[in-house]
């Protein structure tokens, strides 16, 4: 495989699973034998309800776990769109939850995938799995992960809540569908 050097910011309201989404990417990267880091926003930074996490996935040793200009931003609400759209690297990827995000993205030098992720999540049975749909979108676009390993990540992360595995697997599949070019 080519050398991988990916950075991701996932951002949204508390409860939308953006921290867990970051961990999902980090564990996936780890199981692919990449170097990974995950760093949360924390403390006073998360007051007011928005939270974000930084993930790096790399073939090389990772220097700084904080990410200012990400390759990919996954944005689940309006304040996060304001904050992070402008920070995505030129040529990067913005995944946007149009069910929640008020307003339109302005950039034309980045790839933007908009989908009503919360609505889709409700449709397949659990409002909380919009985050895993975005993981599927990311996976189908970036092609650095093997699908079987991603499924294992879901099973590992939900080992104490097995009843949620199947709906999360469906969310992953759905995301990969949406992400298809």
């Amino acid at each position, binding site marked *: 495989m080519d050398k991988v050097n990916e950075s991701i910011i996932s951002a949204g309201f508390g409860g939308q699973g953006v921290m867990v989404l970051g961990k999902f990417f980090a564990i996936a990267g*780890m199981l692919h034998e990449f170097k990974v880091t995950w760093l949360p926003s924390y403390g006073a930074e998360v007051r007011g309800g928005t939270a974000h996490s930084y993930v790096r996935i790399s073939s*090389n040793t990772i*220097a700084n776990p904080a990410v200012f200009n990400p390759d990919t931003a996954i944005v689940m609400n309006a304040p996060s769109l304001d904050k992070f759209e402008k920070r995505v690297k030129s040529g990067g990827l913005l995944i946007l939850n149009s069910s929640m995000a008020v307003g339109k993205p302005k950039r034309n030098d980045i790839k933007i995938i908009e989908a009503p992720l919360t609505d889709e999540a409700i449709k397949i049975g659990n409002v909380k799995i919009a985050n895993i749909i975005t993981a599927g979108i990311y996976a189908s676009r970036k092609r650095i992960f093997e699908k079987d390993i991603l499924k294992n990540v879901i099973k590992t992360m939900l080992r104490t809540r097995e009843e949620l595995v199947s709906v999360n697997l469906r969310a992953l599949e759905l995301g990969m569908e949406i992400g298809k070019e």
Partner: protein
Amino acid sequence: MRRSKIKYLSTGNEACGEGALRAGCRFYAGYPITPQNELTAYMSRRMEEENGTFIQAESELAAINMVFGASVAGARAMTSSSSPGISLKQEGISYIAGAELPAVIVNIMRGGPGLGNIAASQSDYFQATKGGGHGDYRSIVLAPATVQEMFDFTYDAFSLADKYRNPVMILADGMLGQMMEPLAFDDNIKPSGIIPKPWALTGAEGRKPLSAKSLRLGSGKNSLERHNERLQEKYKNIERSEIKTELYKTDDAAKIIVAYGSPGRIGRSCVDTMRDDGDAIGLVRLKTLWPFPYAEIRKLAERGCEFLVVEMSAGQMVEDVRLAVQDDNKVSFYGRMGGGIPEEEVIIKKLKNRG
């Protein structure tokens, strides 16, 4: 028997806690403060599983003194906090040093002075390495730079503390506490460096009573001056034996980045980038801040190297580098404060501009 090495994705704070438990730490007292809360929460859960003691103390002062008590009773004991809380613990650390008790203190640093903010910082270097509390004493200071090292260094801290009957501090910036990285360790790992503690208070059964104290009002060989001289001998011994430094591509380097903790990671990346451009750059990453590697740095200086010290502070460790190099023209500094993280581009620019 197959030795299992399971890989976890762990925060630095939790890796630190697990490293302590695997080292046989069975007493932890703490008090909430960001950015080290995950460590306290982790210990509250895990200590009970290991039949150890977890206490959420009424203050940092109480926490460090509970550690004093557990340590004087013979247990491997730890407390953790972040900068403002560590200031409160300094009195207790001084007593622990004076009474020559082993203890592990974790400082997940945030910015100051005062309440500052909760972002990562390295502005407690002076406090950690030059004493911190009152009196002539030293704490051994370990500086991890990865989640794996948060585990490994904490694990090692307990045997160092026991060996020298001295406080050992884990000094890490808030980013290292909060971030997650893969962590691997042997699931069958056992505590190391376990030695008898004939000084521990266990009740005077079949022996003369013991008393643990830092008060020295005596004269002659019981005088405070003699006690201090013995402590200084111990510190010299530690300086001779316990310095740990990572030298990365320094063999042929003309310019050297000196850093620890998170800036150490960034420095390493700068070395790789500049080496690709053909620049002879190296990194000295400190794993022990006290004892400090004066001799190693001096050797590099004598070879003609120039140094850029990178810290998340106004410039604290740079003073020790200057002491080692003894030529201020060869030492420059780049620091960020208040949660700022040193930027690779700036480091590279600074290195390119010099000489």
